[in-house]
């Protein structure tokens, strides 16, 4: 029987695209109908539609699908394990005493926004390269400091992401593929370097982290030759109500629980150990960077696969938002302007005080947690509009622009659906649905710090540029 004759004998089940009243007419006739949330692909731009059509060629689709399957497999199969903590100068590739790594795509001093400049000058003072912030600003502008994106050194950095030589880093090893990823330690609290604050209290904390906190963690991990399986811990944290970007209370508890026996075994003084535990307990955010390093470790393993349209990096430097795509190997960035972050603010601050979206933490969304896993964190639905339904909506909506689900990291509320994995540039441009990112808000001026948290999206331009490049590249 032909398919047309099969249709005659089936119950009609319609997908309606465009005029919505046709859906109502079908409902009136008791017919199953699904109305698409449709918008013109590529915002109706003929060049983008042409690029989408080009990538729709059956032979090219086959190549892309095969490449994307491989990329997603590598993301899912990656097993990132925390193996230690060391100073950046001792572990990060390409690190020098005068290098400052920063969040997001490449940026020069003159283009940096307030919080980024605040963090850079604070780090220069912390490293002893300048005696005060004024001198630090002068040095930063002189060209003697090497600025480079964290992402180009196997690192990620939250908010300003400013990472200098003597800061302690997480070292995360991908047990499946062998690559390493790094990120520095949470400073906890709100008036901190990564948020653009840089007064003496901030510098003093960094010194304590360098001299006590980092060394204790480092010693503790040396007593743990197996390392800590972060993917397993992440899966647990999601089941405990964290989305692991803006809510980290469960993950932090799990992580410190795993670290505690070995911290106790170190030779440091009881007072120092107590300081460490109190510091970790002072904010839920302690494990925030840890999940970023996990995500970075998994996504780096999926980068550089020819013909793949999977996004491997989303990162912001406070001025620009940049993405990298697996099929465009190396450090090819596609950028657009950094966006505003919308959400509740600390008392005393107004939306106009906000700095633009900043930080490498969107690596969590690139991996499929954070905003993508909103449905598993009902406690923080206030960030995304207030209802559980909104939160669920965000997670299911992200399936529209991703390739697969990660069976290792699941969301109980959605019948243990795996987190949406493998953002596909083609799908973003086709649907106009942009990835949702949960993030913190830093004050736009240097020296102040965190003033709120909320949600944001990448600029669509970054995806459009990537699509055009892919359509020229994939033959």
């Amino acid at each position, binding site marked *: 029987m*032909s*398919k*047309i*004759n099969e*249709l*005659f004998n*089936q*119950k*009609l*089940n*319609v*997908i309606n*695209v*465009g*005029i919505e009243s*046709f859906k109502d*007419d*079908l409902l009136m*006739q008791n017919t199953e109908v*699904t109305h*698409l*949330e*449709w918008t*013109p*692909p590529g915002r*109706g731009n*003929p060049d983008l*539609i042409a690029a989408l*059509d080009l990538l729709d060629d059956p032979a090219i689709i086959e190549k892309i699908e095969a490449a994307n399957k491989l990329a997603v497999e590598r993301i899912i199969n990656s097993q990132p394990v925390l193996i230690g903590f060391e100073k950046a100068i001792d572990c990060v590739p390409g690190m020098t005493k005068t290098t400052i790594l920063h969040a997001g795509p490449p940026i020069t001093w003159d283009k940096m926004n307030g919080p980024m400049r605040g963090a850079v000058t604070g780090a220069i003072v912390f490293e002893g390269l300048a005696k005060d912030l004024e001198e630090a600003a002068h040095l930063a502008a002189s060209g003697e400091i090497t600025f480079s994106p964290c992402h180009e050194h196997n690192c990620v950095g939250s908010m300003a992401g400013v990472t200098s030589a003597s800061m302690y880093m997480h070292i995360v090893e991908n047990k499946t593929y062998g690559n390493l990823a790094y990120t520095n330690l949470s400073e*906890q*609290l*709100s*008036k901190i370097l990564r948020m653009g604050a840089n007064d003496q209290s901030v510098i003093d904390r960094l010194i304590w982290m360098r001299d006590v906190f980092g060394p204790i963690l480092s010693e503790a991990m040396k007593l743990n030759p197996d390392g800590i399986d972060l993917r397993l811990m992440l899966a647990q944290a999601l089941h405990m109500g964290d989305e692991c970007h*803006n809510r980290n209370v469960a993950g932090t508890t799990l992580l410190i629980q795993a670290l505690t026996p070995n911290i106790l075994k170190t030779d440091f003084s009881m007072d120092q150990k107590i300081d460490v535990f109190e510091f970790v*307990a002072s*904010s*839920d955010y302690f494990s925030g960077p840890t999940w970023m390093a996990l995500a970075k470790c998994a996504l780096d393993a999926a980068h550089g696969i020819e013909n793949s349209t999977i996004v491997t990096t989303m990162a912001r430097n406070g001025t620009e938002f940049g993405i990298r795509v697996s099929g465009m190997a190396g450090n090819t960035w596609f950028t657009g302007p950094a966006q505003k972050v919308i959400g*509740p*603010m*600390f*008392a*005393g601050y107004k939306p106009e005080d906000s700095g633009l979206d900043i930080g490498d933490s969107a690596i969590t969304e690139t991996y499929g947690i954070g905003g993508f896993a909103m449905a598993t964190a009902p*406690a*923080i*639905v*206030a*960030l995304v509009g*207030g*209802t559980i339904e*909104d939160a*669920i*909506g965000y997670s*299911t*909506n992200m*399936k*529209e622009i991703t390739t697969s689900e990660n069976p290792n990291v699941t969301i109980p509320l959605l019948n243990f659906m795996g987190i949406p994995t493998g953002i596909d540039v083609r*799908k973003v441009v*086709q649907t106009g649905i942009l990835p949702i990112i949960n993030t913190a808000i830093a004050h736009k001026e240097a020296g102040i710090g965190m003033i*709120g*948290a909320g949600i944001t999206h990448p600029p669509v331009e970054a995806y459009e540029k990537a699509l055009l490049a892919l359509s020229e590249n994939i033959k």
Partner: protein
Amino acid sequence: MTVQAIVKPNTYFDSVSLMSLSTKANQIDGVEQAIIAMGTEMNKEVMKNVGLMTPEVEVAKSSDLIIVVKAETDDLCESAFMSIDELFTKKDTSKGKSEIKYSTIASAAQGIPEANLAVIAVNGAYAPREARKALENNLHVMLFSDNVSIEDEIELKKLAHEKGLLMMGPDCGTAIIGNVALCFANAVRKGSIGIVGASGTGSQEVSVRIHEFGCGITQMIGTGGRDLREEIGGIMMLDGIKALEEDEATKVIVLISKPPAPSVEEKVLAQIKQCKKPVVVWFVGGNEEKVKQAGGHFAKMSKEAALKAVLLAGAEENKLNKRALNIPLIEEVRAKLTPEQKYIRGLFSGGTLCDEAMHTAMEKFDNVYSNIQRDPNYRLKDKNISQDHTFIDFGDDEFTQGKPHPMIDPSTRISRFIQEAKDPSVGVIVMDFVLGYGAHEDPVGAMLPAIMEVKQLAEQEGRHLEIIGYVLGTELDPQNLEEQVEKLLAAGVTRASSNQNAGLLAREFVVKGE
């Protein structure tokens, strides 16, 4: 200015919820500043920074809930605390829908394995891409969109043909699949007659007549208006005939179209010849001989097509109400019209309905003009100015640029109707009123005030103005057929029982000196 704090020991709220509550608390009248937060070091630091530190806050623990308010007076602080208490108890009760939303045909097709047909009505620039996606996902397609290139249509239809899928359209407004009306179609009985139509309102008309004769429809496949052109080669019509031939429920097949391109006509006729089931052919203005030679049943007009189909399907002729033309009425109206009232003005929302009425007039008059005349000599020079006998299809592209179809938005036709009614050379105005899914909820009602107005005007001028109205619809349609007809009659409009009769009545009313 005063700062007051309440500390609730061992009361936990998530920090994000509290930030949201803080935001709301800051909007309470009289509040200078408010913070609601857990007593963590970080929060206490923030409170210190913004000058909201109090002794109670100083000693609060991280498990304590802190509410701090800064206001002009103690009283204002007190009332703010009460309002904040209410914020804590107020829950968002809005019930959002958590049903899954899809943005692309591909994801919907994947998420709904039972989906079998896509109805696509988007701007023509995006339509081919969406239709292709649907076909690639093994969905049958009804493509309502117009302004799709002929090249895209060929490509889509070839792809559909290869995959054995329906590719109805582009510019397909009418179909009935499995007794479900799609886009613009009427609610008709299930039966044994299958239709393949390249003309939307032509198909609607035949399906409604079949229903009125007491029979019904198996499937009504739309092909889009260009299917029988040389370039397309009738791909959809040929596949449609084949599918209906193989369909057990279908006993009789009806084909509806403008006359096909010669090469396509040959293919269609060849298929009719092979077909095991009787095929009725209504090609508006088409050739009878060729159809007969191919073994088909030729119909010159719509009601005739329906009648032939129902008889072939087994209806008993003597039991049918054929709705013969009202001959005494013709005499009556002719007597009322003056010799100057010579012309017909047909104002149609349905293209094929217009075409049929126009061809009826062309049999007796050689000065019939239209915006859809195939002979350029008889095409209106200015679509806004009528000439002699004029038939206008308001659904034609030149009237619908940037406007909804006249079956949805009757405004253009209403103003033209008033214009025509003022013309002393006009003897009769004939109009269609299309009911069914997709159509205007009260098409007659929309025209009624204009009808009253012109009737009054004609009366003042001492001339009779004859208006014929035809309501295309069934008693099962969402609009109320009976009510629509009654509104026409009450306004003094002559009701035609079919489009065929509407065309014939209009023509006969203005025939002079027979």
